[in-house]
C-alpha cells in the first residue's frame, strides 16, 4: 500500500500491558469512507470496543486521531479527537481539542494512535517517527497539567515536544477528567483523561520531523486561498479575533439563553461584568492560535492587572468555562472566576461538568434538600470561596466531592435527590445554553451522540432569526428562527453531517463550520486536491451521514433509543421566567419525529436497514441484527 497523500499514513497501536507497539498502514478505503479524526475513531470504537467493556478496565481502548487538512497552512486550525468508551456516560466518549499535538503526530507519521491494555506502573509515552518509548512517570504522578508539561519537556530537552497530559483529577478517577494539550487546550468532555489515567498513562508526548504532500498542490493552494478570503471577508473575523468564544456571554444575555443559577435566570443583571467584552478591554494582553494553520487566532492570553489576584495569567477563557463559573453558579466576581477556571484546567477536569455538579448542589440547597453541614461547605449562590473549595474537593474526592466526582447523573442517584434537576442527556452534562431559547440547539443536545452537547450540531443559523435564510437553506422559515420548531429536524441533520466532516478533517468549528468556510463542496475539493481521490460534494455529505450513523449504531447497540434522546424536565415543562424568550418551553417530540424521519431512522431512533446499507454500513447492520436488534427497512 502506498501512503495516501496528505495523511501520515500509519496507525500506531500501543499495547501497555505488554509494553509493545506496532505501526499499521492506514487503509486508504477506510480513509475515504471515514475521512479521519472523529470518523476514524468512531469506526474503531464500534468494531474494537464491544458492549460490556468496563470503561476503566484494560479492555477499553483510547484513540487519538488527526485529519487530512492538518499540517497544511489552510487557515482553519488543527485539531484532534480523543475517543473511548466513556466512564462518565458508559456510552460513546469523544472529545476534540485544538492543539499542536495534532500536526506533530502527523509529522511523526501517525493519523491515529490506539492505546490498549493497562500499564503496571505509571508511564508516559514518547512517540516519534521511530516508535514509542515507555518512559517512567512514577515521579510525575500527582503533578498538575502544567507541571507535567514542564517536567516532560525538561526531561526530553525539547520545547517543541507536544504533550497531552492528565492531572490529579484523572488519577483520582474523577469521572469527567480530560486530556489537556499545550497546557491549556482541553479534550475535556466525557472523561477521556480518566480512561488514560486508569491505564496508568500520565501523558503522551509526541515529536515528528516528517512532512506531508498534496497530490495536486496547485489546486490545494487555490482552495486554501479561497478559504482564507472567506475568513477575512467574514464580518465575524474581528469580533472572533478579539474575543474568541467569550463573546457568546453577551449574546446569551441579548437572546436570553444564559444558564443563570442553574438555568433559573436566562438573563442576569451583571452580564457585562463577566463578559468577553470586559475581558478584552481590561484583561487580554495577547492573541494566540491554539494550533498550526490558524488564520483566525482566537485564543486570548489574559492577565489580571489589579487587585489581590494581580499577576495571575493564562490562556482563555472560552465561553463554556467562563459562563460555567460565573452565571451558572451565580458568581459575579470575574477575577475569582478566572482563578477557578485555571485551577479546574490545571487539575485536568471538564469545566462544563464541574460547573453543573456545583450548580446542581447549590440548587439542592436552595430547595432545602441538603444542608451546609451535610455538604461540608457553605452553599450559597455565587460565593467564590465555596466554588473554589468544591473544585478542590471534587479533584481530590474529599467529602461531598466524592459524590460530585461521579457526574451529576450518578450523584443524583447516589444521594437519591434532585434527579429532576440533574441537567444531563445520556449522562453528559448540559452546556451553558438554555434550550428553551434556542430550540434547534435543544434538539441537538437531545440527539448528540455523546450526550448533551452543542458541538455535534452547532446549528448557529437559527440564531440569525432570518426566515428567508431558513426558507433558502431548508425550505422552512422556522429552521433559521431560534424559537421556531418546524424544520429543526432538517437543520440538525444538515449541521450534524457537516460537523462530522469538520471534526474528521480536524478543522476548527469557529471558522470551518460557524463561518461556513469548509462546506461540503469545499471539503470535497480540498479532499480531492490533497489525496487525488475524487470525491464529490454529495459523497462528502454521505461521509458525514456515515459517521453520524456509525456513532448512532454504537449507541443503539448499547440500548439507546428515543427514550434516551430526552431533555431534563425543566426545559420541557417549566416556561422560561424572564428575558426575550420568556414563557417558552421546548417542544422536543415534534422536532424529534422530524429529525428521525430525515435521518432515515425509525421513530424509536433506530437506523433503518436501508439507511445503513445506502451508507455502506452493511457489516454494521449485520452486527446489530446478529445481536438481536431488529432493523426495519
Amino acid at each position, binding site marked *: 500500500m502506498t501512503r495516501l497523500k496528505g495523511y501520515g499514513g500509519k496507525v500506531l497501536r500501543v499495547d501497555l500491558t505488554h509494553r509493545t507497539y506496532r505501526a499499521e498502514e492506514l487503509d486508504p478505503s477506510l480513509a475515504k469512507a471515514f475521512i479521519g479524526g472523529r470518523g476514524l475513531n468512531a469506526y474503531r470504537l464500534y468494531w474494537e470496543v464491544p458492549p460490556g467493556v468496563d470503561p476503566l478496565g484494560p479492555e477499553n481502548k483510547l484513540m487519538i486521531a488527526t485529519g487530512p487538512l492538518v499540517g497544511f497552512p489552510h*487557515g482553519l486550525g488543527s485539531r484532534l479527537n480523543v475517543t473511548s468508551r466513556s466512564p462518565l456516560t458508559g456510552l460513546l466518549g469523544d472529545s476534540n481539542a485544538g492543539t*499542536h499535538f495534532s*500536526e506533530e503526530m502527523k509529522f511523526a507519521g501517525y493519523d491515529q494512535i490506539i492505546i490498549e491494555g493497562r500499564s503496571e506502573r505509571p508511564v508516559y509515552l514518547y512517540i516519534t517517527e521511530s516508535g514509542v518509548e515507555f518512559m517512567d512517570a512514577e515521579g510525575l504522578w500527582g503533578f498538575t497539567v502544567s507541571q507535567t508539561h514542564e517536567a516532560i519537556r525538561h526531561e526530553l530537552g525539547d*520545547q*517543541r515536544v507536544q504533550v497531552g497530559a492528565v492531572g490529579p483529577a484523572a488519577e483520582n478517577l474523577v469521572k469527567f477528567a480530560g486530556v489537556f494539550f499545550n497546557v491549556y487546550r482541553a479534550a475535556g468532555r466525557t472523561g477521556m483523561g480518566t480512561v488514560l489515567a486508569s491505564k496508568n498513562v500520565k501523558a503522551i508526548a509526541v515529536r515528528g520531523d516528517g512532512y506531508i504532500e498534496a497530490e495536486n498542490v496547485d489546486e490545494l493552494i487555490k482552495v486554501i486561498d479561497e478559504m482564507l478570503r472567506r475568513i477575512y471577508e467574514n464580518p465575524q473575523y474581528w469580533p472572533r479575533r478579539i474575543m474568541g468564544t467569550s463573546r457568546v456571554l453577551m449574546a446569551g444575555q441579548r437572546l436570553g439563553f444564559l444558564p443563570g443559577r442553574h438555568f433559573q435566570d436566562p438573563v442576569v443583571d451583571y452580564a457585562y461584568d463577566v463578559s468577553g467584552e470586559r475581558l478584552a478591554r481590561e484583561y487580554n494582553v495577547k492573541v494566540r492560535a491554539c*494550533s498550526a*494553520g490558524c488564520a483566525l*487566532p482566537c485564543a486570548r492570553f489574559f492577565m489580571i492587572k489589579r487587585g489581590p489576584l494581580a499577576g495571575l495569567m493564562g490562556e482563555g477563557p472560552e465561553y463554556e468555562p467562563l459562563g460555567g463559573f460565573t452565571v451558572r453558579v451565580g458568581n459575579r466576581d470575574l477575577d475569582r472566576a478566572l482563578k477557578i477556571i485555571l485551577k479546574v484546567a490545571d487539575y485536568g477536569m471538564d469545566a462544563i461538568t464541574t460547573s453543573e455538579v456545583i450548580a446542581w448542589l447549590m440548587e439542592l440547597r436552595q430547595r432545602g434538600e441538603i444542608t451546609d453541614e451535610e455538604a461540608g461547605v457553605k452553599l450559597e449562590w455565587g460565593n467564590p470561596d465555596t466554588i473554589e473549595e468544591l473544585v478542590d474537593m471534587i479533584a481530590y474526592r474529599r467529602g461531598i466531592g466524592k459524590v460530585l466526582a461521579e457526574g451529576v447523573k450518578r450523584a443524583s442517584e447516589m444521594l437519591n435527590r434532585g434527579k429532576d434537576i440533574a441537567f444531563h442527556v445520556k449522562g453528559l452534562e448540559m452546556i451553558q445554553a438554555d434550550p428553551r431559547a434556542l430550540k434547534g440547539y435543544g434538539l441537538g443536545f437531545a440527539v448528540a451522540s455523546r450526550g448533551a452537547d452543542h458541538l455535534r450540531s452547532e446549528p448557529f443559523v437559527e440564531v440569525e432569526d432570518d426566515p428567508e435564510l431558513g426558507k433558502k437553506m431548508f425550505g422552512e422559515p422556522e429552521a433559521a428562527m431560534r424559537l421556531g420548531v418546524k424544520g429543526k429536524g432538517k437543520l440538525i441533520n444538515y449541521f450534524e453531517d457537516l460537523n462530522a466532516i469538520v471534526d474528521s478533517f480536524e478543522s476548527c468549528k469557529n471558522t470551518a463550520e460557524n463561518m461556513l468556510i469548509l462546506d461540503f463542496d469545499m471539503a470535497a475539493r480540498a479532499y480531492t486536491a490533497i489525496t487525488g481521490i475524487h470525491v464529490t460534494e454529495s459523497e462528502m455529505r454521505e461521509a458525514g451521514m456515515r459517521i453520524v450513523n456509525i456513532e448512532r449504531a454504537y449507541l443503539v447497540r448499547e440500548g439507546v433509543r428515543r427514550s434516551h434522546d430526552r431533555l431534563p424536565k425543566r426545559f420541557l415543562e417549566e416556561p422560561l421566567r424572564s428575558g426575550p424568550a420568556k414563557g417558552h418551553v421546548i417542544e422536543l417530540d415534534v422536532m424529534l419525529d422530524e429529525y428521525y424521519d430525515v435521518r432515515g431512522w425509525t421513530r424509536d431512533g433506530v437506523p433503518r436497514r436501508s439507511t445503513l446499507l445506502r451508507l455502506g454500513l452493511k457489516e454494521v447492520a449485520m452486527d446489530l441484527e446478529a445481536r438481536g436488534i431488529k432493523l426495519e427497512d
Partner: protein
Amino acid sequence: MESKGIHVVVDPSKCVGCNICELWCSYEHEGVFSRSLSRISVITYERLGFDYPVVCQQCEPAPCVELCPTGALSKGKLGEVNLDKGKCIGCRVCSEVCPYGAARMEPREARYPLICDLCGGEPMCVARCPTNALSLSKVTNVKVKPRNAAEAFAISELRKLADEWGVDVDEA
C-alpha cells in the same frame, strides 16, 4: 554581528504561534509541508502566551559564511546567505556558530543546514503570516531632529519598536 542587510524582522507581540510561516517556508524550499524543514522556527512558551519565530538575521559579517570550510555558504546580492548544496559536506559548523540558533541542520540525515535565503527577495513567510508579525526590512535609516528634551526622550523610547520594524532611527 549586527544585521546590516535585509532580513526578516519579527514583531513578537503579534505572533500567535500558528506555524503558517514554517509550513510555507518548507513548501517553498522543499516542495513539501513540514515544520522541521522550515528555515524559520517558532518557539512557544504557553504559560507566558509567548511565541517567537527564530530566523536568520543575515549578519554582516556572517560567522556561518566566514567559517564554512568548503565555501558552501556565500552572501548574495541582498546580503542573504545562500547555500550551495553541492559543496556542503554536512559538517555542522554553520549551525554551531550561528549566534541565534537560526541555522538548524536538516533533521533527517543532517546533510545540509536550513538557513533563510530570503526567498530571493520575496519572502514567503512574510507574505503568508496572517497577523503581520513578520516583515522584510531593508535597514531603513531615518534621521530625526528632536527639538526638546521631551521629543528626545520619546524618540529614544520608540527606538526599540522601530528596531523591531528594521528601522534605524538616528539623531541628526
